[in-house]
């Protein structure tokens, strides 16, 4: 009777899913998110999925939280102090010395999370080789510690130059400060992110420091409430990388859980892909305000090693940066665009039709909600086109008004453009699809992958409605749609493992690298990983490792990640590692010179502690005909036919294993609608996944 609970807090809803590991049975809940105190929504959702007497059977509660990212976006962070090498007090002020917007005279540089008057310098200096040029002046260290105490800081970030190669001064400084300032949260750069490039490392250290008290209090509160309600088992938190960590570790390394929320969806997609034997998958999650895409290769979501956070963060994909606070921790490489059901259609001053990024959100909402919204949204367009049943939205909990949708489209788009309402609605969907195609292409084509070799897993409230058109456009042969598409992210929490990444900058030409030193670094990483995972209750036999090197051509300044096999590195492996680097460079950038020298920059190891996964039960077997699930037909507009077609409508929960639905068709789930285009078919797979393919 072992049970696991996943709780995913989103902008509008808090979702919980409980899985009985032995029977595979699940229970789900959707409750309103409580922004002023998210722990209220958290407990409400947990209590909804627990039956009487089941609380003591829970072995784990897994949580995806936006508490850290919200704290940064809203500026509700702890009062922090920053300590660095003499001469470098302004690392946080100067940043990258660039403007995040090229043509905006009124641009802003992000305001440092720790202001200049709480940035302190200590006399010390270490060289790039790790040699001490100026020893740590203990007197200046103590006066900084006293100043921090006087300033009544709650958290301290320590980042000294070249500490990734020689952390002695940082460690000594931390101990002096903790002596003088008992109870203060201290983050040391050589521990949280021992990688070169001081601004990004300092920024990562500062972020960790100033959110640490916030995250600490939040997790402590959840732990105490779970314990009050006698919910057994440990609390785990989803990291930005898609791995879990215990809340005890999360309290020390909160910088690792910033993108906790979006990660869960990508993890779910990789799990679903694996279940169906698809190891190369593109995850497509379209909700109310945004659409997120990520790619999964050989069962692993693609990772990025740094990104920006904050209210004006610049996405990784463009040619500008500097709008947010850089953070160098592993994160699932997601592309997020402002196209969701609530995205607003408008006409720019040159007469072109645009969709998003502004969203009507849940309030005032799309025009058809009749909750005050007057501007046409993607949902309004889908309603006009017959893709949504106005009386079965959210399983009928909410009635939509098609006339309000038509009027909004007519007034804001059709009349100014001189088109019919239907043409305009189709235009809105086509333009939204074009920007989603761009997102899908960013995570595939532009990362060097051919989308035709991938399957698409589509979820979120709006994903299944748009996915067929997107797959057709990109030539993706197979689309998979899970059940309860709106709860897929919560499911992702229950299908991942405990993971910790260890990294150390070690810059050296590959061909002459000190192999003993390399093996020693890996050995230390392994020991630390085993120790940490065992403290989190993972058994030794459930631990595995993934090792890699960050490499580049000697002289380059961007690195590529090269995975290397487990076991001791031998001199004969070096050329093989370089060959791998060349192949990755070739795939990523289209060229590689096999005679140029390469360089290792950082050494990485991910320690993975496997945890039990839920069982998923098969559906009852049916035959090809989906007649038992039929709800009749309705007229749905398809752009390829330039007209409305009569489409079969089916109830998702009544479909059986083996049923085949031929397009044009509509499959209605309580929280999402799947549109099947003419020329496509959907087969219901053994575990209830919808598998969409071209019919021929």
């Amino acid at each position: 009777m072992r049970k696991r609970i996943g709780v995913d807090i989103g902008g509008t809803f808090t979702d919980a899913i409980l899985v009985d590991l032995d029977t595979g049975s699940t229970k789900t809940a959707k409750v309103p998110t409580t922004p002023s105190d998210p722990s209220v929504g958290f407990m409400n959702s947990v209590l909804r999925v627990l039956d009487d007497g089941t609380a003591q059977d829970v072995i784990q509660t897994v949580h995806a939280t936006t508490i850290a990212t919200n704290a940064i976006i809203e500026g509700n962070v702890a009062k922090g102090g920053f300590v660095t090498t003499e001469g470098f007090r302004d690392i946080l002020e100067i940043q990258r010395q660039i403007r995040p917007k090229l043509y905006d005279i009124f641009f802003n540089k992000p305001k440092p999370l720790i202001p200049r008057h709480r940035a302190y310098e200590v006399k010390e200096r270490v060289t790039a080789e790790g040699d001490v040029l100026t020893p740590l002046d203990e007197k200046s260290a103590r006066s900084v510690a006293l100043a921090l105490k006087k300033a009544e800081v709650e958290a301290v970030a320590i980042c000294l130059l070249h500490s990734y190669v020689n952390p002695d001064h940082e460690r000594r400084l931390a101990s002096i400060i903790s002596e003088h300032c008992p109870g203060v949260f201290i983050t040391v750069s050589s521990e949280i992110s021992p990688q070169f490039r001081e601004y990004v490392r300092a920024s990562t250290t500062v972020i960790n420091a100033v959110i640490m008290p916030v995250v600490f209090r939040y997790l402590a509160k959840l732990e105490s409430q779970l314990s009050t309600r006698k919910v057994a088992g440990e609390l785990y938190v989803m990291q930005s990388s898609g791995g879990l960590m215990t809340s005890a570790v999360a309290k020390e390394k909160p910088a690792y859980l910033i993108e906790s929320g979006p990660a869960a969806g990508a993890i779910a997609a990789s799990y679903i892909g694996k279940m169906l034997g698809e190891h190369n998958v593109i995850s497509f999650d379209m909700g109310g305000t945004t659409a997120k895409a990520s790619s999964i290769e050989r069962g692993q979501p693609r990772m990025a090693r740094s990104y920006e956070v904050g209210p004006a963060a610049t996405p990784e994909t463009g040619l500008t940066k500097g709008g947010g606070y850089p953070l160098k921790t592993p994160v699932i490489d997601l592309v997020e665009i402002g196209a969701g059901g609530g995205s607003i259609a408008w006409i720019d001053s040159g007469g072109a039709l645009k969709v998003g990024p502004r969203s009507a959100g849940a309030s005032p909402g799309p025009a058809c909600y009749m909750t005050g919204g007057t501007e046409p949204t993607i949902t309004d367009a889908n309603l006009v086109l017959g893709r949504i049943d106005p009386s079965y939205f959210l399983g009928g909990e909410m009635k939509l008004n098609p006339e309000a949708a038509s009027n909004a489209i007519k007034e804001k788009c059709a009349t100014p453009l001189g088109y019919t309402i239907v043409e305009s609605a189709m235009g809105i969907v086509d333009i939204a699809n074009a920007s989603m195609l761009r997102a899908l292409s960013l995570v595939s084509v532009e990362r060097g992958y051919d989308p035709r070799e991938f399957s698409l897993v589509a979820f979120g409230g709006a994903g299944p409605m748009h996915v067929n058109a997107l797959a057709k456009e990109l030539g993706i042969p197979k689309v998979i749609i899970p059940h309860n598409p709106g709860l897929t992210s919560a499911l992702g929490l229950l299908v991942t493992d405990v993971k910790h990444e260890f990294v150390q900058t070690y810059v050296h030409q590959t061909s002459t690298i000190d192999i003993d030193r390399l093996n020693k670094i890996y050995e230390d990483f392994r020991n630390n990983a085993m120790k940490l995972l065992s403290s989190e209750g993972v058994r030794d036999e459930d631990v595995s490792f993934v090792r890699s090197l960050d490499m580049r051509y000697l002289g380059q300044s961007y690195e590529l990640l090269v995975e290397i096999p487990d076991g001791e590195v031998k001199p004969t492996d070096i050329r093989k590692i370089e060959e791998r680097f060349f192949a990755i460079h070739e795939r990523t950038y289209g060229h590689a010179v096999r005679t140029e020298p390469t360089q290792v920059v950082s050494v990485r190891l991910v320690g993975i502690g496997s945890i039990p996964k839920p069982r998923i039960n098969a559906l009852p077997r049916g035959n090809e005909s989906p007649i038992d699930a039929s709800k009749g037909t309705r007229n749905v507009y398809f752009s390829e036919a330039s007209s409305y077609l009569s489409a079969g409508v089916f109830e998702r929960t009544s479909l059986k294993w083996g049923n085949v639905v031929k397009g044009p068709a509509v499959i209605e789930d309580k929280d999402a609608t799947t549109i099947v285009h003419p020329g496509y078919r959907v087969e219901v797979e053994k575990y209830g996944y919808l598998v969409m393919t071209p019919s021929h």
Partner: protein
Amino acid sequence: MEGQTVRRHDPIRFEVVRNALQAAVEESGVALARSAYSTNIKTRLDFSCAIFDKDLKVVVQAFSQPSHLGSLVFAVPSTVGVYGPAELRPGDGILVNDAHMNMSHLNDISLVSPLFYKDRLFGYSANLAHHVDIGGRAPGSIAVTTDIYQEGIILPGVKLVKKGEIDNDIYRLVAANVRGKKEFGGDIRAQVAANKLAQRRIVEIIDKFGVGFVETTIERLYEYTQRRTEAEMAKWPEGVYEAETFLDDDGVTARPIRIPIRLTIKGSHVEFDLTGAEAQRKAPMNSTYAQAYSSVVYSIKALLPSDIPVNHGFYQTVKLIAPKGTVVNCSHPAAVVGGWEVGIKVVEGCFRALAKAMPDRVAAEGKKTILHIAFGGVDPRSNESYVYLETLAGGYGGRPTKDGEDAVQAHHQNTENAPVEEMEIGYPVIIERYELVEDSDGPGEYRGGLGLRRVYRFRDHDATVTFLADTVKIPPHGMLGGMDGRPAEFSVLRNGKNKEILPSKVTFTASSRDSVEIRTPGGGGYGSPLDRDESAVLGDVIQGKISTTRAKDSYGVVIDITTLALDRDATAELRTRMRARGE
């Protein structure tokens, strides 16, 4: 009926094709940045990519440095003209850097390739990358030169790439002339790869939409851009607005250089006339027409909604008159390496003229120097020669609603700093300090940003150091009662004791016992400092950005030096007195 179908689906497919073209050029930009070697391209993102139609009109562009706004627009037609379109074959790539062929300076090397679709010429793809060294007198190819032959190897447009392969003879000839060959080779390969990628993407787009539709879309894109730009310009106040801008000196003589700007806004048309700019100098401070054009266009682009695309249609809306043989349109064989310094002065000059028309939409003067520093020598750790180049930020001018940001690049320059740790790993140098300069602000109701200070010491060898900058004599000016920012200062502390002030344009040797120090300018203030919110002044004092003395003398705000308490009564009294004195 057929025509009607096309019309009906136009705005939607227009948007889709336009996005696809933009994605193609951005993707080639990302490929260039990621696979290049030099920090100049990778970290500082000093490069540009563009796609042109077969009539040599620019369709889409991607760059992070707005100084590249005009850089390929003129260069690509000149370069194609060297061979003529009939002589170009699929897979060709023409290498060019000759500043006097409508380019900017020799370090900017462009690669221009024809784009073919099924054996038919469709257009051109081009990219430009700032190479860290192209030969010439000093490491980094920046120096106080008097003609272009001293500035490095000149590439007049040669087919480096044929049938997609690099011609090794030409490559070796060029590589023999540059310092830092590894970086040069890596960067050139990245440029070749970027053009190949653009060719692939264009074929995919045409395969999908058809050549006719893509070409129609491009024409529509020009019209759309021009229509939107002109609609904005029509809202601007008509009139003739005059301003002037100066460089401190030309690096060879101490004579300042004057550039007058006459802006005419009439209906939906904008014209900048630089007639009266001084004759070109036998010195490095000359700009080509393309550079001056980038500057002018930047000032306009900064006043337009950011989503208006930049293409041929946009360039039709801005007219620049710059007489030949002057510092803003120099003739062969003028030296051009300091042309960017002329360029940023022209941007400031244009903003001064625009400020007269629209004072609430323009900032006070910023650092107004590009501020290059280059150094090189033999790395004692490897015994190999090295060269390093960077540019430093300064204060941004105060703005109509807010302060100028501290330590940030201004206007058409937006190059990132190299991390100190990365520099120290790669080059034999120690950065001793990198910090804001207190009290360097131009006081104002909205103050100018602070400049920064960077101190270099070379490890165990003598390095050849060059500065190519300006704004040490004439400070960044404030506007509407705002005061000037502190100008730049260049110096070297010899043997830890004798401080020598250096000119802003100089090449010299520094030993491992010397510290080279640069202080960059602060931005000018906007509005009277006596109108500045006193709590904002207090905030600056608490943060250590300005001293209590400056708070009192420049802002009329009295703050106790030990308690940092604001004395409101004393402040009110002092400000009244200062106003009465007309400060």
